[in-house]
């Protein structure tokens, strides 16, 4: 059975989704086996590939849809959404497990 999870987030970064946040997304996404896509209007990017994410060109204020399919899809979307909600504020947080307890 394929399980799908979805969540809408907004980019709150002055420079948009630039290199460092993209790399944090990849780091987080890589911890999950499910397929994760990030959509912006008609474009879609694989959350596990840095170059794809960069070409999304998500500027400050863009609305993105996070969508995961497969094992732990819900956890994956939650973990990624948390990055956006915290505005990727702590660069070190990307290397820590984000799959812990929900707030």
């Amino acid at each position: 059975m394929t399980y799908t999870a979805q969540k809408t987030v907004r980019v709150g970064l002055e420079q948009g989704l630039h290199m460092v946040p993209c790399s944090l997304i990849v780091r987080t996404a890589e911890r999950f086996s499910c397929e994760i896509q990030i959509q912006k209007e008609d474009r879609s990017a694989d959350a596990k590939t840095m170059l794809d994410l960069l070409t999304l060109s998500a500027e400050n204020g863009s609305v993105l849809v996070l969508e995961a399919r497969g094992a732990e899809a819900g956890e994956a979307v939650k973990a990624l959404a948390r990055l956006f909600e915290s505005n990727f504020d702590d660069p070190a947080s990307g290397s820590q497990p984000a799959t812990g307890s929900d707030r």
Partner: protein
Amino acid sequence: MQIKRGIAVSPGVVTGEVVVLGTEDFRIPQRFVSIDAVETELGRFRSTLDAVWEEIEENERLAREQLGDQFGAIFGAHLQMARDPKLIAEIESLISEKSLSPEYASSRVLRRFARDLQNLGNQYHAERAVDIFDLEKRILRHLLGERREELLHLRAPVIVLAHNLTPSETAGLDREFVMGFATEVGGHTSHTAILAGALEIPAVVGLGHFLSDVSGGEMVIIDGNHGEVILEPDDETLAKYRDLEERVHSVTERLASLKTLPAETIDGESITLLGNIEFPEEAEVCRERGAKGIGLYRTEFLYLERNQIPSEEDHYEAYRKVIAAAPDHPVTIRTLDVGADKVPETIGELAPDVVNPQLGLRSVRLSLHNIPLFKTQLRAILRAAVDGDVRVMFPLVSNLMELRQARMILGDVIDDLEEQQVPFRRDVQVGIMVEVPAAVMLAEEFAQEVDFFSIGTNDLIQYTLAVDRADPSVANLYRSGDPSILRLIRNVVSAAAKHDVAVTVCGQMSSDPVFISLLIGMGIRQFSSTPHAIPEIKEVIRNLTIESAEQIAAHALTLDLARDVENYLRGELHRICPDLVL
């Protein structure tokens, strides 16, 4: 026969067989590989990726430790880019399905991504293309780097021709087999050039595009005196140069006999000759050449050599080696002087968005910006000073505040060492490089706060004449004999004399016999030169009187063109020491 003209950076003449090094940048040796080589090539690509990842991880770790998390995160992002599964899959499929070489496949895929980013029409993303080019370079460097290891397996004497040699490659040249080298790019005072001088092999740089005409194995002559490279010389030319080679050799032999004689003018004025070094091992060479100490120890090679930031012990050990090789003589250690043309991998990448590196965060500015890094070096200097007459010198000081801050940090280091009861010496002399015109303007003020000045002519010329010495289109404007430079030196000498501060001239000008009489005539009594120039300089000094030097200086100061000054001085040198003008 083909004659190419470039910039002479290390004297001597040599004839031999050519080895061409693959160009580092974007000349990709082959586009296709044979079908049965695909597996090996895939393997080569994967091990390259491993090495690239490891290198970026190491950069990331260093950046986090030394500069903080936000710098480390930049490399974290680079690493994610280099690990991008889509990217790797695309490159691998080009190698396995289209039999493209890993070099060509990587370059093609990365450039396509870069173009995609540039086409997004957003400034930020367009700029990110640079990060992708950086990754391309890294991958190519590792792929092609394997080929460069050919240099390590030389069995017979050769002459190396390359698009470019990095300082570390130059330093690594096997002196037993590499008799000379020539490169397409580079300028007078690039570090590669300085190193060639230190290695004492003839070298010519800045030849422009010529490697496409050379396949390797041809006969070539490198004329490091005139900056010429002669490809496939005819018999007559070959005979002429073989003869010249002999003559250069005999002059060198004669000069070597000066070693034990004092550096004194005819009328008995003693001049102090010191050596410039990059590596501790060179201190020994300086002594062999008769230097009375080290006037400039360029410590940035500690950073360049190993591609990582050296520890206090690394510094300490290197300094002790130098002190041991210069017993009873002064050793002036210049703190980190990282500049645009000598940026070590790690440190250079830590300051990512440099607009103009020559005017940016470099030298003492970089040290004051990275106090832990600075303190590590100062601790090692003060500890090593227990064993000798060590002096510390700050580079690129452009205002009094920088000097005071640097001295304050030195004071903190003294307090720390005292508290920790580590043996050290507290009364080391402190000086500055005078290499920014602002420091010359304020020479009187600086003279009241330092023990010595060292005039760094290379940078002083560059900043005064506003010439980037590495840019071939303006390199001809970079002239040591420019009247403005002579006046600046005169001002420094007079400010120093007023406050009884010692002045040394280091840099290329003090290694060129042409300028020695002028500088002595202007009041300079200490030179710090590349070791191989010391015998020549001593020869000039021993054939000079102070009075004649003063006359030469007085006349040179009346001339208003660099060309006239240099021609006049060359003529005078010819009169004083005809042997030295070849």
